[in-house]
C-alpha cells in the first residue's frame, strides 16, 4: 500500500497490508480477518474492553456487569434449509451474549433492504425474528430501516446488537483457560455451512442437511447452574471449531489437544465435505458452543449439556495442555498427530 496516500481526517499512515483492497477472504474469519481487525480496527479503536476480543464486551455499570455485542448478517440465500437470515440474526446475537455467561435481555435490529425485496419475504423474516426472540426470551427494543438502490445490496442485510446481564460469580474469559481444562463441544459440527452451500444456486447438490441455528442461552444458563467453573465459552461460527480453538490457544498462550474421533459429525455432512473437498473443522456452526471447563466438573457438565435439546450430542473432544503453546494438535482417526492450523481465507473447493 502506498504510504503517501492520506485521506481527509485520517492523521496516521495506513498500516501496511499485503492487499490494497478488501477481499472476500478478509471476511472469512481466518488469518486475513484477524489481520484486518488487528491492523486496521484495533490499531485505531483499541481499549481495555475491546482488546479482549471476546464475543461480547464486558462492561461494569455501577455494581452491575453487562455484556454488550453486535453482529451483522449478510447470508446468501436469505432463506436456507433450517432457517432464514432473520432468526439467524436474533440467535447469533443472543449466542454472543450467552458466550460471555450473560443472560440476554434486549436486542436492537437494523435492516438494510435492497429496493425490490418482496414484502412477503420481509414479512416472513420479521415473523421468524419475533418467534426467535420469544424462544430466546429477549425483547427487540429498538430498530432502524434503510433502503438502498437496486444492485447496492443483496436483498437484505440485518445488524443486531444486544445487551445482557452477567451474574457476579461468573467469570468467562479466554485468559481463564488453564492446563488440564476439558474441552466440551455441544454437538455435531459443520451443519450450518453445508446447509448454506447446498442452497446456493451454483451448486447442484441436494441434501437434507439443515442449518443448526438455535439459541444457546438456556443451555448456558443450565451449565452455569451446574457449576461456575466454566473458564471459556465460544460459539464456533465463521471459521468453524478449528478457528475458535486456535484463537483460544493464542489468547491463553496454552496448547490444545483434541481427538478427531471424539468430534461429533453427521454422516451426510461428512459425505458433503468429502465430495466438496472441504474440512468440516473450518465450516460454520450457528447453534453450537465449545466450553473449556475445570476437569473436576467435566463429567457433570457433559451430563447437563446432554440433557438439553441443543446439547444432546455433546462430547469431550480434548484437553488444554502446557505443551505446544498457541498450537492446536489433533490425534487423527488413525492414531497419528497433526497440527490444526488457522485457515488463511475462505476454504476453496479443490479442483479434483
Amino acid at each position, binding site marked *: 500500500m502506498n504510504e503517501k496516500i492520506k485521506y481527509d481526517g485520517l492523521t496516521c499512515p495506513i498500516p501496511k497490508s499485503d492487499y490494497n483492497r478488501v477481499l472476500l477472504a478478509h471476511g472469512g474469519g481466518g488469518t486475513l480477518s484477524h489481520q484486518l481487525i488487528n491492523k486496521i480496527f484495533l490499531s485505531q479503536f483499541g481499549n481495555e474492553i475491546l482488546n479482549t476480543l471476546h464475543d461480547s464486551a464486558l462492561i461494569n455499570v455501577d455494581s452491575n456487569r453487562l455484556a454488550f455485542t453486535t453482529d451483522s448478517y449478510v447470508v446468501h440465500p436469505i432463506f436456507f434449509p433450517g432457517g432464514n437470515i432473520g432468526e439467524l440474526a436474533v440467535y447469533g446475537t443472543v449466542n454472543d451474549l450467552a458466550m460471555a455467561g450473560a443472560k440476554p435481555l434486549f436486542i436492537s435490529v437494523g435492516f438494510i433492504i435492497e429496493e425490490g425485496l418482496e414484502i412477503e419475504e420481509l414479512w416472513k423474516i420479521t415473523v421468524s425474528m419475533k418467534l426467535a426472540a420469544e424462544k430466546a426470551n429477549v425483547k427487540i427494543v429498538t430498530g432502524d430501516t434503510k433502503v438502498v438502490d437496486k444492485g447496492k445490496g443483496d436483498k437484505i442485510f440485518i445488524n443486531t446488537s444486544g445487551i445482557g446481564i452477567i451474574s457476579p460469580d461468573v467469570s468467562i474469559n479466554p485468559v481463564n483457560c488453564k492446563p488440564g481444562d476439558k474441552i466440551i463441544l455441544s454437538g455435531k459440527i459443520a451443519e450450518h455451512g453445508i446447509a448454506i452451500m447446498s442452497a446456493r444456486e451454483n451448486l447442484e447438490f441436494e441434501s437434507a442437511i439443515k442449518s443448526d441455528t438455535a439459541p444457546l442461552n438456556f443451555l448456558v444458563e443450565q451449565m452455569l447452574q451446574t457449576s461456575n467453573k466454566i473458564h471459556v465459552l465460544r460459539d464456533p461460527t465463521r471459521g468453524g471449531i478449528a478457528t475458535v480453538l486456535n484463537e483460544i490457544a493464542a489468547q491463553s498462550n496454552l496448547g490444545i489437544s483434541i481427538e478427531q474421533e471424539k468430534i461429533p459429525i453427521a454422516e451426510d455432512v461428512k459425505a458433503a465435505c468429502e465430495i466438496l473437498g472441504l474440512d468440516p473443522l473450518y465450516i460454520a456452526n450457528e447453534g453450537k458452543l465449545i466450553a473449556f471447563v475445570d476437569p473436576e466438573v467435566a463429567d457433570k457438565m457433559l451430563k447437563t449439556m446432554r440433557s438439553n435439546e441443543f446439547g444432546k450430542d455433546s462430547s469431550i473432544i480434548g484437553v488444554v495442555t502446557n505443551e505446544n503453546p498457541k498450537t492446536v494438535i489433533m490425534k487423527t482417526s488413525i492414531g497419528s498427530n497433526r497440527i490444526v492450523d488457522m485457515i*488463511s481465507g475462505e476454504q476453496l473447493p479443490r*479442483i479434483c
Partner: protein
Amino acid sequence: MKYIDEFRNAELIGNLVKKLLQVTTQNWKIMEVCGGQTHTILKYNLEELLPKKISLIHGPGCPVCVTPLEFIDKAIALAEQSDIILTSFGDMLRVPGSKSDLLNVKAQGGDVRMIYSTLDAIKIAEENQNKEVVFFGVGFETTAPANAMAVYEAQRRNLKNFSVLCSHVLVPPAIEALLSSSEVSIQGFLAAGHVCTVMGYEQYIPLAEKYKIPIVITGFEPVDILNGVLLSVIQLESGKYEVENQYKRVVTKEGNVQAKKLLDEIFEVTDRKWRGIGTIPNSGYKLRDRYSAFDAELKFNLKNIEVEESKICIAGKVLQGLKKPFECSAFGKECSPEHPLGAPMVSTEGACAAYFHYSKRN
C-alpha cells in the same frame, strides 16, 4: 461413512505399518505423484508412522501448482475485461500471477465466478449471450474429460460466446522427465489413482521397464497410501520393477474408455510448460484445430503474454522432489498461504501449503 471409513481404519493402518517395518531393510525414496496423496500424507501425518528408512517425496501432481505463471496472467487479463465472465474451479482463484491474483481482480470488479462443474460454465454462457464466458481449464487427465465435455457441449449447442483457457498436463511424460534427470534420485512411484481411473495404466508399463522402477497405482485414503508404499517396498526389496494396481476398486488397466474417446475427439497432445520445471515435450493437451473456435488464447489474442517466475521461490525444486518445502529460505517468511510466492503454497494440495498447515514448522 461406507467406502471411506474402511480406508481410514486404525487397525488396518497398524497392520500395514507392522508389515512395512518387517519388510524394510534398506533406505528407499518413494515419490507420490499426486497432490491429493500429498494432502492425505500430511493431513494424517503418515510420515510419523512410516519406518525411518522410507522417505516420501512429494511430486508435481498438483494441477494448481504446475499451471505456468503466464497462464494465470492470461486468466487475469481476461477477467479484467468488462465483457468477459471468467469461470474457474475454486483453488485457481488464489494462485498468484506475476502481479495479482483472480480474487484481487474480482475485488476490483472483474466478473470472476467459482464453479463446481464445467457444465455450469456452459449454463452461464447460455444465460449471458451478450458476454463472453471463458472457462479456465487446468489440471491433469483427471479433469480433462470434464473440460472436453464442456467444449463438446458448447459445439453441440452452437454456443459462440464460450471458450476455454486450456492448460492441461499429463502425468507419464512428467514421470519420464523426472526419471531422466540426473539430479533426481527417486526409487519408486505411487502413481495417481484418479489419473489412472481415466487413462488406465498401460502407459506406465514401458516406463517401469525402461527405468527399472516400481510404479504402484495408488488411491487417496491413508490405507491406500500405506498399502501403496508397502507394495513398492516389497518390489524394491526383491529387486522387482513392475506396474502394480493398489487402487483396484476404481482403476482398470484400460481406464475409462468413453472418457478417453472424448479426450481424443477434443484434444491433441502438445508440449507444455510446467511451473517451476520448464517445458516438457508431449506433456499436455491443446484443443484440436477443428475446435479452435473455443480456444480462448486464439480468440482473445493472448499468445504473447510471457512472464518470469519469482527468483527466491524454489517451487520447481519442491515439485521435482529435490527439496522439502521447509528448505526454502522464504518458507513461512516471505511466502505463506496469505501471501504465496509460488503455487505450491496456494492450493491445499500444494506441498508447501500442506507442510505449512499440517506439520511443525521448526
